[in-house]
């Protein structure tokens, strides 16, 4: 197991290297540059800036310089927000995104698992139909559509919340619901299917036959075993929430890392594009790794060599 983890961790390096390479050359093929914006700088200033950031060198040379800097732990500086380092931007802007993402993740997991399990234990009952309805509908309502309906109801009609702003807990409610809706419906669908499968297993009948109380059978034997397939989903869902929330950050004008990334692509802010893409890729790869390890930890049938 330890060798497996070490091998997987070592594999992270080539993956990040290739992600860096692909992004670097893609981004340098985007027409325009960081200093060719609407308000043109004097040619001499432009020349000096280009020289300072090595933008006057051939792309492959810039690429090698960038790799050298990254290997020394230096992710460079932002062009658009002069004076701020990419590392500090990521550190600062990731906080709201992480706060929202983790809150939405917890809401989605709790709501999804509770709803899915309750539905399966009462198969064909009203809660079951509600769950099936919710999981089918939920999968077709992307976050920004949920957000639109939430805003119309709670901001425009009821005046319970404000749409824009960031900082106090009230501002978290609508974005978290918008983000959690789709993953919650997804988790409830998988939980329901998984519980329904486990309920019919022989060891559940055995547990019941030996006289265990119903609640003990449901929690210890059914739910615990049906959570295994859900575990594999949670990693990608968390990674998706942390990397895919930029639309919600736009809608509620939250100063998060997703918005920063999209803005950096607009501004040709090369350092920030590279930094945030690498950061995201790292999150996704690590999330997948953690899931694989967890999978082996909870299911004794799975062994990695």
């Amino acid at each position, binding site marked *: 197991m330890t060798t497996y983890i070490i091998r997987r961790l070592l594999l992270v390096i080539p*993956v*990040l290297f*290739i*992600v860096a390479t*692909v*992004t670097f050359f*893609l*981004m340098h*093929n*985007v*027409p325009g540059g960081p200093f060719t914006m609407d308000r043109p700088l004097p040619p001499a200033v432009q020349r000096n800036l280009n020289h300072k950031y090595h933008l006057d060198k051939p792309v492959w040379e810039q690429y090698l310089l960038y790799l050298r800097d990254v290997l020394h732990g230096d992710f460079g500086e932002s062009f658009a927000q002069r004076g701020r380092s990419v590392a500090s931007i990521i550190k600062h802007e990731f906080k709201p995104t992480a706060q929202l993402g983790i809150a939405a993740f917890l809401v989605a997991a709790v709501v999804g698992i509770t709803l899915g399990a309750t539905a399966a234990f009462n198969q064909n009952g009203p809660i079951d139909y509600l769950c099936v309805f919710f999981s*089918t*509908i939920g*999968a*077709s*309502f*992307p976050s*920004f*559509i949920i957000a*639109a*309906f939430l*805003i*119309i109801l709670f*901001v*425009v009609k009821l005046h319970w919340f404000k*749409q824009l702003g960031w900082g106090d807990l009230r501002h978290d409610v609508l974005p978290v619901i918008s983000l959690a809706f789709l993953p919650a419906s997804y988790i409830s669908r998988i939980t329901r299917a998984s519980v329904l499968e486990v309920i019919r297993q022989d060891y559940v009948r055995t547990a019941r036959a030996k006289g265990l109380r119903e609640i003990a059978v449901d929690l210890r034997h059914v739910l615990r075993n049906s959570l295994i397939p859900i575990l594999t989903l949670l990693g990608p869902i968390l990674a*998706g929430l942390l*990397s*895919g929330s*930029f*639309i919600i950050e*736009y*809608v509620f004008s939250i100063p998060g890392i997703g918005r920063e*990334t*999209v803005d950096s*692509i*607009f501004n040709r802010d090369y350092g920030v*594009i590279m930094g945030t*893409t690498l950061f*995201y*890729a790292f999150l*996704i*790869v690590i999330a997948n790794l953690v899931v694989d390890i967890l999978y082996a930890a909870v299911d004794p049938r799975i062994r990695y060599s």
Partner: protein
Amino acid sequence: MATVEDAGVFSAGEVYGRQRNLWVDAFRRLIRNRFALIGLIVVATFAILAIFAGPLGRYDPYNYQNYSALNQAPSLKHFFGTDDIGHDNWARVLVGLRVSLSVSLSVAAIVFLIGTAMGCLAALGGNATDTIVMRIVDIAYAFPDLLLIIIIEAVFRAGLWQTIVAISLVAWTTIARLVRGQMLSLKQSDFVLAARTIGASEPRIIVQHILPNTLGPVIVALTFIIPAAIFSEAALTFVGFGLPPPTASLGRLIFHGYETISVNPWIVTFSALAVALLMLSFTFIGDGLRDALDPRSRGAK
């Protein structure tokens, strides 16, 4: 359904007939599924509305601007109301449907071709090509989808075809993975072994036996790629990439509707509902197709 009794004596013609009925059977099962049928009807209706967006829209979606009727609620004159510069929202939603449908169906077609080709290449092309193709797929998985699409889109610049290509370049990996897995397991199956024993050539086995059997799961996966593509286009346009203005795609309508949401919630409501209904219908069709094409569920009804 055929029972054991009427399978007693059968001619070659009957066998051939049953084989051809596979797709007819699947379609029959599909429309027996109530949700899938609703999905099909909604998609068909939306397609008709999109194709005849011109006459059905009643107003010019771009050039008609009525400055004495701004931000109106739905009425007989303007079915879906008007926006803050007097555009008729009904006409614009119809054009938006046209954009969303053409983007998503084109993406599905391109993804089908690239995904199947790459999947075949990986499964049948030997170890070296398999490794190369699957490493490309793995790398693509390490990128956040929408951000990769945005970077590709930025390289190509905004536009209809550019959006389609950018979404396709990211979405094909799912199909390639699926086709490869299917083919690798079909290669080991008994009916392929049987075909090989009676002397069928390798290309014939692939074209006649393996390829048609991978088609079912691929079609199901494609119906789920369609709503994902509708979402991607809307999301891209929403944050300012995707289709350039003035194109009235559903993403732009939602984006524009957000700006006036406090004075006129109708714009965002109707365009968001159109996206959601479209995605929901394709999901229903996909679910129905999965049941209809799954050989294990056959004969159960």
